[in-house]
Each structure stands twice: as C-alpha cells, then as structure tokens.
C-alpha cells in the first residue's frame, strides 16, 4: 500500500473509532436508531410505502442532526489541539486528511442511518397488515422497493450533510462557534433553505438544487416511494453534488491555510 493510502486508512480508522467510542456518540446513535425503529414499528401495519413516507419526515431532520452531532468537532479538535499541525509537519496533505475524516464520518453516519432503516424494513416485513387480501397484494403495501430506496437515498443524503459539517468544523474558531454553527447548519438544511426558496418563489428545480433537504425529499418521493411522477430528480442530484463539492473545496482551502 502506498504511503498516502496507509495514512488515509489510518485517518479513516481513527475517525470511526473516535465517533463510535465516545459516550456522546452512543447517545446520538442510540437516539437515532430508537427514533427510526419506533416509527417503523408504529407504521409497519400500513406497509412499506406508508412507513417510508412516515420515516421521510423524521429523516429530513434526523440525518442532519446526527451528522452534525457526531462530526462538528472532528477537524476543530485537531486544529485546536495542535494535532492538525503535527499531521501537516509529518507531510500529510490537507486532501488526504480531509478525505480520511470524510470517509470515516460518512461510514459511521451512513451505517447508523442505513443500518437502522434496514432493520426498519425487516420490522415492516414482519408487521405489515395481512388480513385484507387486496391491500397485501398492493405494491404500496407489499413491495419493499420503497423502503430499499429510502435506505439508499438516506445514505446518499449523508454525503452532502457530512461535507457541510466538515466545513463548519474548519470554519469554527472555538467549540462555542461550532455549536452555534451546528444549530445554524441543521436549521438551514431542514427549514431555512426551503423557506427562503418558498418565500422568494423560485421554481421547484432551483429550490431543489439550493436545499439538500428538499433534494432528499424529492428523490424519496419521486424515485423511492413513487408518489410524485415528475420530480426534478436531476436537479436534486445536482444540488447534492454541488453542495458536497463546494463545501469540500472551501474546507480544503481553509484548512490548507491554517496551522
């Protein structure tokens, strides 16, 4: 393995262990899993599609909240403690370091969200209503595709969220800044960007590009659940890609200029 690959793998492992090894991490992850499984249990009799729609509402808030709660300190701690300076002096490039942190965070948050949704799918399989034959044969009730799409798209939603969290972690000068910034990021992603787009009456595709949360909703409702036939899927994916690339680019630039 190349030196860069070895260093990056070490950074990924460290990030994963930092996240899963902290008591705060367990509380956050436990809370997220409990919320997903609780809703799945309550919604299971309605079948896969109904459960996916019920979960979507919660996941729009839960994914950014978990991402921010687990990740806002990662780069910030390394900067404030001098560990980032030690990394750089050892010849670790900002890109290698950020990729390692990014992959580690996406892995953990993705596993928490994806894992709990996979279990939720099993709960629906076991608990969906069976007595009415025509309901049981309806794709909305009996076809698990909606839930499987929800799993995949939720993991995808983790990517722009983690990119924004890393930007926050590099931007903050102190822990207090990071906590304030965390609230702002969650607020923006969950409500703010949607609200701004609605107030300014921008067309739906533009709104979906501007708001990662709206993009997630669009993708789940269009591709996953199939409730919306003509949602701007391409715009949603473009929005995610843009948010991710811009956030990572600004993070890299800012991190490279600081000891």
């Amino acid at each position, binding site marked *: 393995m190349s*030196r860069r690959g*070895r*260093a990056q*793998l*070490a*950074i990924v492992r*460290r990030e994963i*262990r*930092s996240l899963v*090894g*902290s008591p705060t991490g367990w509380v956050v992850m436990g809370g997220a899993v409990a919320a997903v499984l609780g809703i799945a249990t309550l919604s299971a009799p309605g079948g896969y599609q109904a459960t996916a729609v019920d979960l979507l509402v919660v996941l729009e808030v839960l994914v950014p909240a978990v991402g921010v709660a687990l990740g806002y300190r990662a780069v910030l*701690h*390394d900067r*404030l*403690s*001098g*560990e980032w*300076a*030690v*990394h*750089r*002096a*050892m*010849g*670790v490039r900002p890109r290698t370091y950020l990729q390692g942190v990014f992959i580690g965070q996406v892995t953990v948050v993705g596993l928490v969200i994806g894992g709990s949704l996979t279990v939720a799918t099993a709960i629906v399989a076991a608990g969906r209503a069976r007595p009415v034959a025509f309901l049981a044969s309806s794709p909305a009730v009996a076809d698990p595709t909606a839930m499987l799409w929800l799993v995949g798209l939720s993991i995808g939603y983790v990517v722009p969220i983690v990119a924004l969290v890393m930007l926050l972690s590099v931007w903050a000068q102190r822990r207090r800044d990071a906590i304030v910034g965390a609230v702002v990021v969650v607020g923006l992603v969950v409500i703010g960007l949607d609200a701004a787009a609605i107030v300014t009456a921008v067309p739906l595709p533009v709104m979906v590009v501007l708001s990662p949360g709206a993009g997630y909703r669009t993708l789940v409702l269009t591709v996953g659940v199939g409730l919306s036939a003509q949602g701007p899927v391409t715009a949603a994916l473009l929005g995610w890609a843009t948010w991710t690339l811009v956030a990572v680019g600004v993070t890299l630039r800012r991190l490279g*200029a600081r*000891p």
Partner: protein
Amino acid sequence: MTVTAISAVGLTLTRGGRQLCVDCDLELPVGELTVVVGPNGSGKTTLLQTLAGLRTPTAGRVVHHVDPPLGYLPQRPAFRAGFTVAETLEYYRQLAPAGGRASVPALLERVGLGGRADDPVDGLSGGMMRLFAVGVALIGDPPVLLLDEPTGGLDPQMRDAIVAIVSEEREGGRAVVLVTHGLGAIDPLVDRVVVMGEPASVTVGAKDTLCEQTGTGTLEGLYRQLTEVGP
C-alpha cells in the same frame, strides 16, 4: 561543511497587523541546535510554524532542503480522547512516510513513558503529555525537530529527560529548533540563537559569536542584553 536543513530568505512575518520580523534570513543546519528566544508575544511560535511550513510568510520564503516528515511539538499539545498512549503513537507511526524505524514500545521507553502504554492518552498529566508529544515528534525519524516550549511547566526530572533527548537528537545529526524560556537547562547545547525583540528586531547568529559581540557569557545574559530586559 555545513548542511542546511531549512533556510528562510527575506522572511517577513506579521500577525494581527503587527510586524514580527522584517526581511530576515535564517539557516538551520543539520546537527545543530537553534534556539528561538524572545519576550512573550514576540512571534516565536509564529516563526516556528512558518519554518515548519504551517504558515505562509507575509513576504519571503522558507525552503525545506529535506523531505518530510518534520517533527513538530505544538505549544500546548493534546490528543484525541478514546485512545491509549500506544495506540496514538502507532497512529502517528502509520502517517510517517517510512513508517518510522523505532518501534512504539521503544520510543515510549525513550521518552520515559514505557509503563504508560495502555493508559488513556487524554489522562496523561501536563508534563507527561509534553513528553509524549515529543515522542510523537520523533516517530517518523524526522531530519528536523521543531519544538515549541518542550520544557515548559515540567519538573526538573522531566525537563532533564527532554534536554537529554534534544542533546541525543542533535548529536544524531538532526537539525533541532527550540522555542523556550528555560534558557539555563539548554544553554550548553545551543549552537545558534534567534532573538526576537520588539519591535520586529530579530538577531540571528552563532551563540558564541553573539556572546562575544555582546560581552555576555550565557544565553540568558545574551537574551537580556538583546531584548533590553534589565536584571
């Protein structure tokens, strides 16, 4: 012949709009110990970070004539919680280009933390944390060591341990740069001195030459003379 590990040419540093040094030339030869001294806030840490390549100078340039890694000790080192002392050092060994020749246990033994391998790294005392951070700086066999206040806040035994390590590294052919206020302990080892006075006056030279020019016999006397801090 003197071999230079790091050189700075026409270096100008500013922080918060204040000039710390102007058009300063500096060479850090291998096998020599250079000490950076100056009053609090004179820019010693900024200079060290610039030499390490962590900061971009306002003007001028820093040239590294050696390949990474550079061993760097931050002023107030701390490490991520949730890992043991040995795990943290192993992590840094994996980041080093050659993986580091010294084994983790051997290095911990060297910095006096052989019995602490399985302790949580965030549970080390301030002094032990500093010793450990010196171990981290050494892990990749760096040709250059840049140490910010390595003896700050240490008891005499720990301070002596750090001074002994610095001496061995210098003898082993590394270029060592120290920022320190503990001048007495390292005085006999020092080859070159960078005195950062105010405002932005920087004096650079061989210790013996500067002592001769100023008529002082010790590093502390030289420091007091050049920074005009009377006894």
